[in-house]
């Protein structure tokens, strides 16, 4: 999508095009109004293949039957069943759905569910209220290729270390590729990591 910035901060006036027409999207949302809001947003984006589930059981049935390109799941109340659904999805071994980009939405995350939200394996946890531009930003962001996927005993999901902000000031890096040396004072604002990554990544261009 030339013109669509990889980082968040998408302009609502952008003329860059994207195509969600053929994307198969699962929406898990128990509240009928919450479902209507998401359906209006996603159909506004041009999505046509929407699979709606009002419960975890329905969503699990769809995961087993349909190949999905995007999952938008709500945390589902104080119990956080939506987080459990994402954990189940990752561990289900139903390929390719177990690797599908997941956008988790939550009205409010109670203090005792923060760890669950962090560890469930979603690509992004988005706090409500949702607005069309923020949902689109997140969808485009989680669809980026090249994000690593981590599988271990305690976690299965996208690599959460997607920012590389370097070694903390005054400390010596422990990674082999950490650079050492003195750096002068910055004379202008830092470039965003996504912009740097974008410069290093091979892209097809239209001349």
């Amino acid at each position, binding site marked *: *999508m030339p013109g*669509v910035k990889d980082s968040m901060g*998408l*302009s*609502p*006036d*952008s*003329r*860059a*095009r*994207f*195509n*969600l*027409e*053929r*994307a198969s999207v699962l929406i898990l949302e128990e*509240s009928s*109004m*919450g479902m*209507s*809001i998401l359906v*209006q*947003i*996603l*159909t*506004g*984006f*041009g999505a046509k293949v929407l699979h709606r589930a009002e419960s975890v059981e329905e969503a699990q049935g769809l995961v087993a039957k349909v190949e999905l390109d*995007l999952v938008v799941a709500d945390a589902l*109340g*104080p119990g956080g069943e939506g987080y459990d659904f994402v954990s189940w999805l990752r561990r289900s071994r139903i390929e*390719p759905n177990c*690797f*599908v*980009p997941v956008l988790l*939405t939550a*009205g*409010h995350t*109670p*203090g*005792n569910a923060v760890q669950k939200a962090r560890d469930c394996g979603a690509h992004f946890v988005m706090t*409500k*209220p*949702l607005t*069309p*531009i923020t*949902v*689109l930003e997140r969808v485009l962001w989680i*669809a*980026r*290729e*090249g*994000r*690593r*996927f*981590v*599988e*271990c005993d*305690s976690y299965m999901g996208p*690599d959460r270390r997607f920012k590389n902000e370097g070694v903390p000031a005054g400390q010596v890096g422990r990674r082999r590729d950490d650079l050492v040396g003195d750096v002068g004072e910055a004379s202008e604002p830092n470039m965003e990591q996504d912009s740097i990554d974008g410069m290093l990544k091979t892209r097809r261009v239209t001349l």
Partner: protein
Amino acid sequence: MSSVKIHVPVVRLAKLLRTPGGVPVADAVKRAGAGLESLRAECLDELRVTLDQAELCANRANGEYDAAVADELYAIASAAIGVPTACGLAPIDTALVSLADLTDYLRTRKIWDPNAVAVHLRAFRLLLHTEAGKDSNGTKAILEGLRRVSQRYAKPEAAADAKSAAG
């Protein structure tokens, strides 16, 4: 030591998004906004029901901590977050987030502050039934006041002080 497998799965969504055709970002955002606008009446009805449920629930507490009431009020407030913004009443979402914060703190600490709950519900009613639902200086002052009330219970020591002041 447990094993860790790291790989880069194929993201079909990325390819689909790039397929020819589609829609410009500006048009998509506009169409989604128009879709949400079509839900306005339904959203307002839903908010009225939410407010009634929240008031009935809070009244059941009789001024004292009741785990079932605290859990139910938290569930009512948190479930409605997102609906106000969809019908152009974003300040009510801020009030609901503050109410959800407050009830989460109260139920975690097993205490109750009827005044703090009541002021949130009165603000909800005011914002829903007046033009205060739109952004204005008065609305900002109300929301800032609510935030200060709910944040009094954010830390354990502050909660103890707030409880003794309320009681």
